[in-house]
């Protein structure tokens, strides 16, 4: 029995038990999210107390290096965490007041695609190589909306048109390998937008692409977001892309959000030494020969975290207290937090 017919049977009863959504609540509210991976080497706290909100039409960037927990946060929100070894051990992910973590599997699956959708980094491995893109796009409509193959194909062509793939009617029958990198990423975007989601998570959507293609894709994403007033959660390590598109930023380091602020404030006056060092360590295309400051050392291993502040071993202003006491989230200003004991020294008010 195909997944389509199975879904059709289950759609009706499973939605009934779902708690009522409150339209005045924030679009997406993540509160004290905890995710751990139980590995042979011990328990790794990949996400440790991430809290943020995302409103419709806004873009929040989650910025961090590999291993900082930014992708795991996205997977936990989307509900696609590999389990085992990953487990959500605490916190809440609320969509319009409904905690998605408390929903059953069926309810959760119905939300995927229609409420929360995700664009993955590597479109070539995210798309199935043995089906045409039209089939894969149409699957969304057949499974979730119960459309016929013919109608689903028409919808797929509309979507390819929407993401500005030239000759959509012909290309709908092509396989993923027949598309270029940029075009493939457009197919991914089309797939994510198929069911008109309210929240779009883009996990490094342009990392594998060339700069000129990156510019095309980011422009397209921004336009579509405005048209549909979606909340966009952009996962990235590129501080340039963030500066271009984000409204708010959460900077993650070793599983924690170390700084969270509106975008202009963070670039003007970072309130955490990690953010500050990071900004000083990237070369810029519009400036010449500035000295690149270096963040010494390496990020900590998640299974053997240092006591106190996790950035302390690499921090240029670390003191005794930093090695003993984990800094709480200090309120720097409204909408702005920093996890540094000495944030007021990084960021002179």
């Amino acid at each position, binding site marked *: 029995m195909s997944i389509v017919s199975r879904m059709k049977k289950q759609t009706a009863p499973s939605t009934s038990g779902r708690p009522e959504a409150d339209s005045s609540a924030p679009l997406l509210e993540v509160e004290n999210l905890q995710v751990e991976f139980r590995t042979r080497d011990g328990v790794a706290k990949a996400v440790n107390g991430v809290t943020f909100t995302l409103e419709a039409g806004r873009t929040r960037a989650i910025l961090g*290096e*590999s291993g900082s927990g930014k992708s795991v946060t996205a997977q936990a929100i989307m509900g696609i965490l590999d389990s085992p070894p990953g487990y959500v051990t605490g916190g809440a992910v609320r969509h319009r007041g409904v905690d998605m973590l408390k929903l059953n599997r069926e309810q959760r699956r119905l939300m995927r695609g229609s409420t929360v959708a995700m664009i993955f980094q590597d479109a070539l491995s995210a798309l199935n190589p043995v089906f045409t893109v039209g089939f894969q796009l149409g699957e969304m409509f057949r499974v979730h909306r119960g459309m016929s193959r013919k109608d689903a194909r028409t919808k797929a062509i509309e979507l390819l048109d929407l993401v500005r793939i*030239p000759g959509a009617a012909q290309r709908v029958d092509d396989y993923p390998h027949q598309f*270029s*990198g*940029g*075009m493939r990423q457009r197919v991914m975007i089309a797939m994510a937008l198929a069911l008109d989601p309210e929240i779009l998570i883009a996990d490094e959507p342009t990392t594998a692409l*060339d*700069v*000129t*293609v*990156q*510019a*095309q894709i*980011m*422009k397209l994403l921004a336009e579509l977001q405005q048209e549909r007033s979606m909340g966009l959660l952009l996962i990235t*390590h*590129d*501080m*340039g*892309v*963030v*500066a*271009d598109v*984000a409204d708010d930023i959460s900077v993650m380091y070793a599983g924690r959000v170390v700084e969270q602020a509106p*975008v*202009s404030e963070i*670039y*003007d006056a970072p309130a955490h030494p990690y953010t500050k*060092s*990071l*900004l000083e*360590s*990237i*070369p*810029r*295309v*519009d400036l*010449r*020969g*500035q000295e*690149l*400051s*270096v*963040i*010494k050392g*390496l*990020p900590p291993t998640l299974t053997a975290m240092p006591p106190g502040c996790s950035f302390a071993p690499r921090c240029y202003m670390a003191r005794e207290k930093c090695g003993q006491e984990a800094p709480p989230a200090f309120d720097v200003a409204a909408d702005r937090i920093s996890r540094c004991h000495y944030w007021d020294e990084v960021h002179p008010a």
Partner: protein
Amino acid sequence: MSKKSAKDTPREENPPVDAAVVPDGTGDATGKDTGAASPAPDGAATEATAGDGAGTPAAGATVTETPRASEPVAPPVLDKGENVLEVRDLVKHFPITQGIVLRRKVGAVQAVDGINLDLRRGETLGIVGESGCGKSTLAKLLIGLERPTSGTIKVRGQDLTELRGGDLLAARRNIQMVFQDPYTSLNPRMTVGDLIGEPFEIHTDVVPRQGRRQRVQELLDLVGLNPDHINRYPHQFSGGQRQRIGIARALALEPEVLLCDEPVSALDVSIQAQVINLLEKLQDELGLSYLFIAHDLSVVRHIADKLGVMYLGRVVEYGNAEEIYEAPTHPYTQALLSAVPVPDPKLRGMRDEIVLEGDVPSPANPPSGCRFRTRCWKAEDVCAEETPLLQVRENSRHASACHFAQKRDVVHGSA
């Protein structure tokens, strides 16, 4: 010496114009206008090029060159010093064949199509371009992993394309490579000592056998790793440390030229700066020349003295890096630079952003004339008919391969 061969000849019998010109290597540069041309005296040309680097051509004068058949013209001279690497008219076409028993050639992928480069001692030449533009093929050709279809690669005056056997082996010592991915370019079964010491097994006369271990430890120290870690395996190191091992291995034979093919793109942002600073430190200490291939234009701006912008196997803009970043004249360079996001939200929307339409055409069937014309907003009929030469144009000091080259500052906010 190569400067002298640059003979500038005005098309309309004007007095000699002080401009340095470059052939684009496709052949249509040679021979054109030779009838009307009278060679300028050697002295005049030398004076012009050596005087202020690349001179400015007189307004209105179109400049063509008449190279001697055997001696191609040098790219614009930017500063003085000894050329450690000289690439002339380098071409690599990969044949496309059909048939299994009776193989016949049905076409060619023109991966690299007529490239001229000069690299001086202690200098860094950045090569930028999108994927598929031929930059990695160029690196493979330079290091001898691929044989060029035609053209010459001279390292310290020795043409690598002519050498064979032992001579080639010896000549290759002078040009070594740092690879992109430190996770796949180090054999996981070899210790760091074996990895860095392997070049000595092949080039046995560089360091005597008993001194090799010590030399490896010196190299480890040089790149900022603990010499006591000589017996460790690659998996015991982080990405940044592995890239340091890759650099130490490339330095083992004391090369003059280091080819860096995307050396930091696989690393995290906070680690990138460490490796970039290490490369700069090594350059100062050892007088190395770098050919730095990257797609990250911000990194290249930081490290490069000279820049070559590649599109579909050809160099479209070439010259002083600072000048190109400040005032690019080729439309492709402008689009490329304008697409780089600047990490400053205050400049959002203020950049002169040019978003290119479509994709790069296939190198197996490149457009006629200017290869960028299919995506260019300035393209006219002449672009399809005539291949623009890579030469210094009006109002600009660096070479650009565009009929309508014009300065445009795209990386700064227009506020």
